[in-house]
């Protein structure tokens, strides 16, 4: 495996090898799936949306729809305005979404198509919507695209009527449907009235019914998105991913916001719950407190297996930060903390955590790739890797376990139904991590050291 990766780390300026990110439009497409009866639309050549649909389908093992402006060489010269108009007409005719969410591509961005104007000129059927965001593939990453699409919905649809709806607006950031369900469960338990944008639960974790629905019942409704402007305040989960959308809402409708890390692990989930409590004034109910206590109980129980274990964590910035925090809470040593997405907050946030937990000599890097991570690991090995599927070759090459978390996980099933956030998500993370460590011990120790009781 990966036999051509040398141990010596060579500084590279131009060549990205085995990236830890993909392009903006993929994230924009995903975000748009979290809106009710929305068809994501890719304004570019048709290969883009084909790739993005493949990519997302492989992660969720669910149908992922998206249309394309199907640029030809001609459109690339003369601009894609007419392609988009034709597309919108055909889409409303044939696929009958309530809303089309357009994102751009490197192609249409390089051409310089002015989507705002094109959409303004469109003949949009009554009761239907077309929104857009700019997602140049050559800036940021899929995470940026997700953020931009969420902000796009806000910019187009949210409005302030002057009458508060008493709700909390939640920008949950990039999660799996299982995560979104967990947020809703906790907010319900905390008696917080909320609108959450986006929400792919019910869309990408749907039931097998024997009937294909192009638009399942899930997703944030347009009315809810409109109503975000009337929310009392907004809560951005995952600072890098969600804060810009909260800023957009504040700018547009004056809604104040709070931005906190993804509620992964104890401390961050505590922050989430305390923020909800501050909103609802309700006591934290027993079931939430019990879950928290159960998680702490497990963490104390398993500490002999997790404490001091070195871990390499890679993936999307807010998720990686959440996993890193939880690993620290488990007494692990996050030796390498890597995201492919650019952004300065990442390093600062990770360094602050390391300092708090007294961990030194970790390598924290944004805009990094997995080739670099592998080289680091060859120089100082770790016990376990945590991240998406693309690390599997490294894990096999180095003979260590890979715990699959984050995005994308394209070589396993069921994971997207399960939360990593909240205390329940902590239980899942704890079990996945400790089982990987214990399985490794069971299979790699000498026969005389196989333990019946652990």
């Amino acid at each position, binding site marked *: 495996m990966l036999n051509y990766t040398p141990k010596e780390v060579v500084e590279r300026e*131009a060549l990205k090898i085995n990236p830890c990110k993909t*392009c903006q439009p993929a994230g924009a497409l995903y975000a748009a799936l979290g809106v009710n009866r929305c068809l994501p639309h890719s304004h570019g050549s048709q290969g883009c949306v084909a790739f993005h649909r493949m990519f997302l389908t492989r992660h969720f093992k669910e149908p992922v*729809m998206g249309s394309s402006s199907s640029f*030809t060489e001609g459109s690339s010269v003369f601009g894609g305005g007419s392609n988009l108009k*034709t597309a919108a007409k055909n889409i409303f005719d044939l*696929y009958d979404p309530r809303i089309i969410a357009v994102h751009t591509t490197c*192609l249409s961005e390089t051409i310089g198509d002015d989507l705002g104007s094109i959409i303004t000129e469109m003949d949009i059927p009554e009761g239907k919507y077309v929104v857009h965001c700019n997602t140049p593939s050559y800036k940021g990453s899929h995470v940026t695209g997700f953020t931009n699409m969420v902000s796009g919905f806000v910019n187009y649809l949210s409005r302030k009527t002057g009458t508060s709806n008493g709700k909390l607006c939640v920008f949950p950031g990039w999660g799996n449907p299982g995560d979104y369900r967990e947020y809703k469960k906790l907010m319900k338990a905390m008696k917080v009235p909320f609108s959450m944008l986006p929400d792919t639960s019910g869309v990408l974790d749907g039931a*097998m019914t024997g009937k294909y629905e192009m638009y399942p019942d899930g997703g944030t409704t347009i009315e809810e998105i409109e109503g975000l402007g009337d929310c009392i305040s907004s809560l951005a989960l995952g600072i890098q991913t969600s804060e810009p959308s909260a800023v957009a809402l504040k700018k547009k409708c004056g809604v104040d916001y709070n931005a906190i890390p993804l509620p992964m692990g104890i401390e961050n989930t505590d922050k989430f719950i305390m923020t909800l409590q501050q909103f609802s004034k309700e006591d934290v109910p027993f079931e939430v407190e019990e879950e928290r206590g159960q998680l702490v109980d497990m963490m104390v129980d398993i500490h002999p297996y997790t404490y001091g274990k070195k871990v390499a964590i890679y993936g999307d910035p807010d998720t990686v930060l959440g996993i890193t925090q939880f690993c620290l809470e488990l007494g692990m040593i996050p030796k390498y903390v890597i995201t492919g997405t650019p952004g300065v907050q990442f390093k600062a946030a990770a360094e602050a955590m390391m300092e708090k937990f007294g961990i030194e000599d970790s390598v924290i890097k944004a805009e990094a790739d997995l080739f670099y991570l592998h080289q680091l690991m060859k120089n100082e090995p770790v016990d376990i890797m945590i991240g998406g599927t693309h690390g599997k070759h490294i894990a096999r090459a180095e003979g260590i376990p890979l715990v699959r978390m984050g995005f994308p996980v*394209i070589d396993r099933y069921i994971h997207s139904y399960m939360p990593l956030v909240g205390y329940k998500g902590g239980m899942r993370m704890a079990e996945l991590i400790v089982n990987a460590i214990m399985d490794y011990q069971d299979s790699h120790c000498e026969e005389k050291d196989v333990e019946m009781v652990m």
Partner: protein
Amino acid sequence: MSEGLKEKVLDKYSARVYKNRKPHLVTVGEETEITANTRTIPGIITQRGCCYAGCKGVVLGPIKDAAIIVHGPIGCSYYAWGTRRHKAESDIRDNEEADCYLEYCFSTDMQEADIVFGGEKKLKQAAQEIVDIFKPKIVMICSTCPVGLIGDDINAVAKWIESDLGTKAISFSCEGYKGVSQSAGHHIANNQLIRYVIGTGDKEPKTKYSVNVLGEYNIGGDGWEVEKLLKRCGVEVVSVFTGGGSYRDLKNSHLANLNLVQCHRSINYVADMMKDKYGIDWIKVNFVGIESTAKALRDVGEYFGDEQLKKRIEEVIADEMSAIADDVSYYNSKLKGKTAALYVGGSRAHHYQVLLKDFGIETVLAGYEFAHRDDYEGREVIPSIKTDADSKNIESLEVEADPKHYRVFLTDEQKAELDNKGVKLNYYEGMFKGMNDGSIICDDLNHFETEEFLRVLKPDIFFSGIKDKFVAQKSGMLSRQLHSYDYSGPYAGFKGAVNFGHDLVMGLYTPAWSYIRAPWKSIPSIEGTLGGAE
């Protein structure tokens, strides 16, 4: 009825779309001409990919010892990383090792500044780095959409790599917007391979019975299975285009005596041009399907005409057939009478009908994603295919006979004799001819038509790709990916047929299907006795 069916499906279209789509749909026995290789209408949810996908993803990607830099923003390289199941491993042939870089994904990860100020400098630096780290035998550069627009001269960079870094390099201007589908990318890849790879080596085959396998991408190990079979028969495989293949071998491919073409669409340019340039005949083969695999092997025997070889081929066929007979008959008993719809690439929708027939499964609907008319109607229609604006943009390379290497293997008489025996040289008959009257053929089948056709035709199995797999599956219909074989395979050859049969039986008979309907949905709500109803 089928005409009515077509109309029913097309009915919901606006007039403009209707007009566009109608000629893409054909009822076998009723119509004979199809429209193909034209633009997909914007907004229509197609399964098609782009030129880059056809060039880098399909044709070049499998070349294991080529270090392919995708020049563009990160996504395009990322999506083509490890996702297509063209298997390969490094190997040594005549003391020459071919590395395998397939676990690596290389990109210039263009940033805004590169778009604004041009990306050539970054590309050169990336090439420097790839040469420093990997020391590859060959570097390939594939450009993606913005590169064409901003005018980076990747050809010049390739030349610079050769001159300044001393490493062979080829550039492929396969921007995604070119052409109307992956097909444009195949063509671009084929052109450059003919220009810069084929004919540059000098390793002579060891035997007379030497072939190249063209258009075999070793998905799920298919190519390995085919190579194994050919070798068992005593046929030497000089190179495979391009599954498990290598620059090391491709460069010698002009020295083989026969080309076997598996995927006609993606590689016919190479076959054609090698015929013109080197005089090498090609036979269309189909190693998918039991009878078709036997025929392909026999055709090779006939081509070379050697009795010893033909005898050996018959022995191998008999042996392979007997090894799979029990399994085939068991799977046949479980599959006979089922119906299938196929929507795949540029040749598989045809190839797999043959294998399905081996198991008694009828194909009621078939379509190609990126085929041309000849893939449907046979190569005889090529002269009558009109070029349009999109196809004109793809270079059509003219080659001339290579004075050093051009040779003729068979005399015209021998060719005529072969033709009589049913071995058609340099010819592909297309998909139409093998299909039953009344079955539907649909070019560039889109999501809307897929839903409609599946609803009405109710096939037992829908063969397609990852993007529409779950649409069918959610409807309670078995769907298997024929691009990637759903992570199974090989499906080619005799043993592959058994794998295929196994997977279908598994899919159709997996108990979970019977649980889709909850019992409270089917059993009338029962009156409770007491309690609980407060």
